[in-house]
């Protein structure tokens, strides 16, 4: 267990969720991939990706910190330090 109270998150688990959500081969993704320039995501794409990561990993990402992430590595790091999602009345896609 990590200090966030849940099982540790493997980088590959996040890559798999991102690849599935964006319908891209895993090989096209790297830790340095930027969401806007490299992956071509707009704001709505990115929000959907964040929701997919949250649902896939069972975590709740902080909105302010998620909005600052630029790369997959940033998102992985944020997911690893985020608490489990209690799902208390929040919007789910």
């Amino acid at each position: 267990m990590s200090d966030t109270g849940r099982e540790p998150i493997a980088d590959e688990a996040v890559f798999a969720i991102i690849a599935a959500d964006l319908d891209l081969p895993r090989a096209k993704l790297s830790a340095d991939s930027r969401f806007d320039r490299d992956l071509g995501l707009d704001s709505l794409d990115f929000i959907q990706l964040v929701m997919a990561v949250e649902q896939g990993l069972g975590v709740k990402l902080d909105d302010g910190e998620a909005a600052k992430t630029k790369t997959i590595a940033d998102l992985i790091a944020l997911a690893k330090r985020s608490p489990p999602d209690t799902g208390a009345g929040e919007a789910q896609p």
Partner: protein
Amino acid sequence: MLMKRLLRGLLVRALAMLDGSRGASDGQEELIVRLRSWGVTIGENCRIYTTDFSTEPYLVTLGDRVGISGGTKFLTHDGSVWLLRGKRPEVQTFGTIRVGDDVYIGENCLILPGTEIGARSIIGAGSVVRGRIPENSLVTGNPAKIVGRASLFLEMLRENGNTMDTLALDYPTRRALLRRHFGLPE
């Protein structure tokens, strides 16, 4: 008829002066007074740029700090019931619309009868919305779907390089600043 309209206009202005929501200079006070006189329930500090509140405006309830863009339409009845009038000539079907506090509805949305939009939600331009939208939802499309949390979208707007504090600038200053910002010639 003309006299009636003039008198109504004067009454609307007079009511606007008594409304207590002073400060705006773009006809918001007058519009909100007019919409309330039609029966729309409107909370405090709303900004509304549509008058399309259907034939039953008294079935629409807006919370506090609700922003509604131009072209958006509220529909409080279902016209397809007309097909039943062969056997029930007087039949009609209605639905209420409730919008929570701190909601923004973008341009040219259609809000269908029976819709309930939870507080702190954002409805993207052109959405066709029905059913219950939970609080803090970002909603887009036709039929509208929940994309994610409105609060995340707002944080992203905060981080967006094209988000600027320009509201108080006069038109020429803002124009020059924006053309420069986007690399357009002076």
